[in-house]
């Protein structure tokens, strides 16, 4: 009997959302300009992020909710870009941001908002392997025996990583995570060759791994956060 209770408690603890954060609102992943014409990777990452959060025990408020609130608030103040420079007006965008968090909390009982973006980063490499943000991939440069015989190349190469940030409903950051996705270039015959944007972000296994790398530490980090 006691063992059954302990087992039940153990399972409950493993899948239960973290105290204080039960419901998370998500936004659509922001992707670099060169990939914006490709709707599939964006939808795929959105879906992977939501499903990963659910498996970790969180209730997820879909991206459409936070996005519609954001756009309504943005339009209500006539936009937040300076018409002379095209740059963001920080005070205005912050007003929209905080207004959205307040509304998510009041109308949808949201405890935290998760936003995510994909960035191009510079990943260091030595020889054939590139390791960055938990991911690993062959660079195309010589490594192993070839490196020993002909010299090892080292330097940095273009790569893509997924970043996530979670904040509470007053804008305090609770968590930041990152996971390497894949290389944006390869070394071919001693030269860097960019991979066609259409061929990037389509490897389902790599995308899923990046989401896990970015989100897997989330429950542990939230439980280890000191209380108020």
């Amino acid at each position, binding site marked *: 009997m006691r063992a059954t209770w302990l087992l039940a408690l153990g399972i409950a603890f493993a899948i239960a959302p973290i105290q204080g954060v039960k419901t998370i609102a998500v936004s659509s992943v922001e992707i670099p300009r060169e990939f914006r014409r490709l709707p599939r990777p964006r939808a795929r990452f959105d879906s992977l992020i939501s499903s990963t959060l659910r498996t970790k025990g969180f209730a997820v408020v879909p991206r459409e909710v936070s996005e519609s609130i954001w756009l309504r608030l943005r339009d209500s103040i006539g*936009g937040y870009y300076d018409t002379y420079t095209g740059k*963001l007006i920080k005070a205005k965008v912050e007003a929209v941001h905080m207004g959205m968090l307040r509304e998510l909390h009041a109308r949808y009982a949201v405890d935290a908002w998760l936003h995510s973006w994909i960035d191009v980063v510079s990943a260091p490499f030595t020889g054939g392997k590139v390791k960055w943000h938990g991911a690993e991939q062959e660079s195309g440069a010589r490594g192993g025996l070839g490196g020993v015989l002909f010299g090892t190349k*080292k*330097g940095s*190469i*273009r790569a893509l990583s997924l970043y996530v940030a979670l904040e509470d409903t007053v804008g305090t950051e609770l968590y930041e995570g990152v996971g390497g996705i894949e290389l944006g270039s390869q070394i071919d015959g001693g*030269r*860097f060759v960019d991979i066609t944007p259409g061929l990037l972000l389509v490897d389902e296994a790599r995308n899923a791994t990046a989401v896990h790398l970015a989100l897997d530490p989330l429950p542990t980090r939230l439980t280890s956060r000191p209380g108020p």
Partner: protein
Amino acid sequence: MSSARFCCIYFALVALAGARARPSPIKTIALSPVQAPDGLEDPAPASALFDSLLAAELGQAGLTVIPSRETGAIWQHFVDSVQGYYSALTGELVQAKYAAVRTNTLRALRDRFRADAWLRPTIQVVSVRFAGGEAIWDGASEGMGGGSSGATVALSLVVTVSDTAGTDIYIGRGGIQALSKGSNVVDRSKLFRDRKRNLQAVHLAIDSLLARAGRT
């Protein structure tokens, strides 16, 4: 029609076509203020530096230069008339507004100052791939310190010249200096200190223009 008369008409037509195809020579050029990149804490000194270098080199080549303060004031007047040409909602450029500002500025430069051309300089951040420990970009080169190959970022002077009809007739680029070497980011206070490099960037960017205009 006699063959001699036919030949005369033929050569006159060829000469007329040639005159139309050849761009009119540049005598007076309007210089816009140098646009510096966002990352600089205080872009004014860098803008002023390249502004004076460009004005001096163009002047020495025998061109009449309409100073950047005049060109900048005209541009600003037309930007104010449309209350800026970026969208407040998206931050993107509104093409129709931008085109109106550009056309009106060109017209004013031509009518008030008899400008033949308009030169718009920018300092841009460019990504540079390097190998063999040396980065080479836009005609410039610089040692990278550590790391035999990889990617870095650097500054380049880019000039675009339009004729009075608004057609871009020239684009020139000159590398200035690298912004990082290996993992070391160059201190912002040490940028644009090398007078030789600065002047070389100006020459790389405009020498072909001056040669084309028969000014070298």
